C-alpha cells in the first residue's frame, strides 16, 4: 500500500502546505516534533495511558438491536459519545496537547464550531497545565452556549469571533492569525483533518484509535469485517478516524455524510464534497464551497460542527479515487434521526452524528438484513438539547 500522504503532505493532488511565510517555521518545528517525539514509544505509551485512564477508552461497539430492526440490517454504533467530554474530539486534543507540552509550549489555542473541540482542548490543557484560548464564532456561541460555559469552567478564555460568517470558518481564520503572532510559546490545536501538512495526517492518526478499536471489536463480535462504515463529515476527523484503519480492506465500503442544510440545491448547506470544487482554504488543497471568483461560500447547517465550507484533503482524495462515497442529509432528516435514535435506543446523538444516522434511515433499502454497518456516533446530543427544544418551540 502506498503511504498517504507523501512526504510533502499530498494525498494524490490534495493537501500540501499553503501557509503564510511566517508560519513555515512553526509548521516545520511541529513536523519534526510529531515525527520524532510523537512517534516515539514513550509518547505513545503516555498517550495511551491518558486515553484509557482519563478519557475512558476503548469506547464500546454497541449492537443497536432496536435501531437495526428499524433499518433492516445489523447496525453497530461506535460509541464515541461515551468518550470523556462527550465526543471523539478528546482523542486528538490529548495527543496534540501532550505533544505541545513536550515541545515546550506553554499555551494552546483552538477553533471550535459546536464547542466539542473547544471543550476537549480546554480539558486536555487543564489536565496538562497549559494556558488555553478558544476562538468561536458569534453565531456558534449563541447556539452552543452550554459548551461556552463548560470551556470557561475548564479555565479557558473564549474569544468571540465577529468577522465573516461568524461560524467555524472564521474561528479558524482568527486562530491562525493568533498563531502567526504567538507560535513561539503557542501550539495551534487544529480540531479536524484540515490545515497545513502535517495537521491532516497527524489528526487522522490520533483519531485512528476509533477505527483500530472498531476493527478489533467487530472481529470479536461478528468474526468478520463490516460491510459499511458510515460517519458524518464536516472537516472529517471522526469519519477518517473510523475509515483509515480499514483503508486497505477494500470490501469495506466507506460512506461519508455531509450536511445538506436546507437542501443541497439551495444556497444553505455545507456539503463540500458533494457540491464543492477543488481549491485552497486554510492551508490545504481540497474540495471547497466557493463561487466562480474563488471566494469562499457562506454555509449553513443545523449542526455547528458540520457548518464549514472546506473538508480534509484525504476525503477529497477518497472521493476522487472512489474509495469513499459521499452523500448529504438535510437539517430535517438529521433532526428526525436525532429523535429516532433517542426513542429506539435511548441514545441522544449529537446533531452532527445524527446526519450519519439519517443516511441509514433515508436509505434503508440499500442494506441487506445480513449486512453489517458500523456508524460512528461521534458525540452525545446533550449540547444540542436546548437548540432542538427551541426549534420545536418548547421553552425550557
Amino acid at each position, binding site marked *: 500500500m502506498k503511504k498517504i500522504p507523501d512526504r510533502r503532505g499530498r494525498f494524490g493532488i490534495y493537501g500540501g502546505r499553503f501557509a503564510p511565510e511566517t508560519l513555515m517555521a512553526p509548521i516545520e518545528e511541529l513536523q519534526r516534533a510529531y515525527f520524532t517525539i510523537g512517534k516515539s514509544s514513550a509518547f505513545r505509551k503516555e498517550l495511551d495511558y491518558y486515553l484509557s485512564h482519563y478519557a475512558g477508552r476503548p469506547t464500546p461497539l454497541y449492537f443497536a438491536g432496536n435501531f437495526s430492526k428499524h433499518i433492516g440490517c445489523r447496525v453497530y454504533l461506535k460509541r464515541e459519545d461515551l468518550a470523556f467530554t462527550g465526543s471523539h474530539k478528546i482523542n486528538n486534543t490529548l495527543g496534540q496537547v501532550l505533544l505541545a507540552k513536550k515541545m515546550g509550549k506553554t499555551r494552546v489555542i483552538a477553533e471550535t464550531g459546536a464547542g466539542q473541540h473547544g471543550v476537549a482542548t480546554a480539558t486536555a490543557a487543564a489536565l496538562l497545565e497549559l494556558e488555553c484560548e478558544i476562538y468561536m464564532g458569534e453565531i456558534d456561541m449563541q447556539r452552543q452556549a452550554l459548551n461556552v460555559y463548560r470551556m470557561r469552567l475548564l479555565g479557558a478564555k473564549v474569544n468571540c469571533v465577529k468577522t465573516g460568517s461568524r461560524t467555524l470558518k472564521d474561528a479558524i481564520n482568527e486562530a491562525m492569525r493568533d498563531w*502567526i503572532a504567538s507560535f513561539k510559546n503557542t501550539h495551534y490545536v487544529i480540531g479536524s483533518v484540515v490545515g497545513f501538512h502535517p495537521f491532516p495526517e497527524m489528526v487522522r492518526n490520533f483519531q485512528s484509535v476509533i477505527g483500530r478499536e472498531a476493527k478489533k471489536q467487530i472481529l470479536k463480535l461478528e468474526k468478520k469485517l463490516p460491510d459499511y462504515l458510515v460517519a458524518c463529515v464536516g472537516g472529517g476527523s471522526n469519519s477518517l478516524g473510523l475509515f483509515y484503519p480499514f483503508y486497505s480492506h477494500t470490501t469495506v465500503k466507506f460512506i461519508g455524510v455531509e450536511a445538506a442544510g436546507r437542501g443541497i440545491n439551495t444556497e444553505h448547506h455545507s456539503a463540500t464534497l458533494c457540491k464543492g470544487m477543488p481549491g485552497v482554504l486554510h492551508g490545504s488543497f481540497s474540495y471547497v464551497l466557493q463561487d466562480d471568483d474563488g471566494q469562499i461560500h457562506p454555509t449553513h447547517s443545523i449542526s455547528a460542527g458540520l457548518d464549514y465550507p472546506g473538508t480534509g484533503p484525504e476525503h477529497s482524495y477518497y472521493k476522487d479515487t472512489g474509495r469513499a462515497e459521499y452523500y448529504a442529509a438535510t437539517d430535517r432528516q438529521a433532526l428526525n434521526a436525532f429523535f429516532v435514535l433517542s426513542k429506539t435506543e435511548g441514545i441522544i446523538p449529537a446533531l452532527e452524528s445524527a446526519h450519519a444516522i439519517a443516511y441509514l434511515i433515508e436509505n434503508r433499502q440499500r442494506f441487506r438484513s445480513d449486512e453489517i454497518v458500523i456508524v460512528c456516533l461521534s458525540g452525545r446530543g446533550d449540547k444540542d438539547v436546548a437548540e432542538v427544544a427551541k426549534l420545536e418551540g418548547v421553552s425550557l
Partner: protein
Amino acid sequence: MTIQQRFDQLKKEKRSGLIAYITAGCPDLAFTQEFALRLQDAGVDFIEIGVPFSDPVADGPVLQQASQKALENRTNLRSILRLCDKLKKTLGIPYLLMTYFNPVFRYGLKNFARDCCENGVSGVIVPDLPFEESNDFRLELEKYGVEQILFLSSTTSTQRRKKILDAARGFIYYIAVCGVTGMREFLPEETYQDVATLRKNSKVPIAVGFGISNAEQVRRLKSCADAIIIGSFVMREIMAGNYQTLLETIKNFHNILEKE
C-alpha cells in the same frame, strides 16, 4: 516599466523606494484607479493592488475590513485586471497584484499569468503560497515575464532562506513583524539587523512590509532596506476619508527615503 528598471532608477536617485498597497474596489474601482495616480504623484514608486478575499488569514482588522468592503462591491479578479489595463495607459510606475491563492487558482494559473502580462502587471504577491508550493505558478508567470515576489521573515530557516534567495525575482518581500498586517509603533530590533544581513546575500532588492506606519520606522529602514511597503496605514486613512493627510504623509516618507 519593470520592477528592476524602477529599482535601477532609485539607485541612481540615491533613494530607497516606497511601495503603497491599496485594496482594489475599496470604496470602489473608480476610486482605486484615480487614487493610484495620486499616490504616484505623491512619490510612491510601486503600487501593490490588493485583490479582496473572503478569508484573508494573513491580514489584520484594517485590511480585512477593506477586503470585505471591496467584496460587497462585487470586485473580482476580472474587474481588477480590467482596471490594470486602464492603469497601463496612465501610470508611469510598476504595479503588482497581491492576492490570496484561491481566486487565482479558480481563474486558472495560465489565464492569470497571460492576463497579468497583457494588462501590464509587473509582479504578483501571494501570501498563502510559500516557495515550496509555488513551482507551477512561478513557471507560468515566467513564461509571461511576470515576477512572483517571494516572502521571507525573521523566522525563515537558513535552509529555506537559501532556496528562496536563489529563486527570487523582482524583489524579496521581508515580513517585518511576527504577526498579521497592521500598524505597529515599533518594529523588533532584529528586523533591522536581519534585513541588513539579508541584503548582502541577495541578488534582488529587499522590500520591508507589515507594521510600518511612522516616520521613525521609515528613517531607520532606509539605511538597510531597498524599499518599504505601507498597506494598513494607507487603507485606514482611505476608509476614514483622510486623503489629504495620507498624501502628505506619503510625501514626507518619500523625502525621508532620500539618502544623504
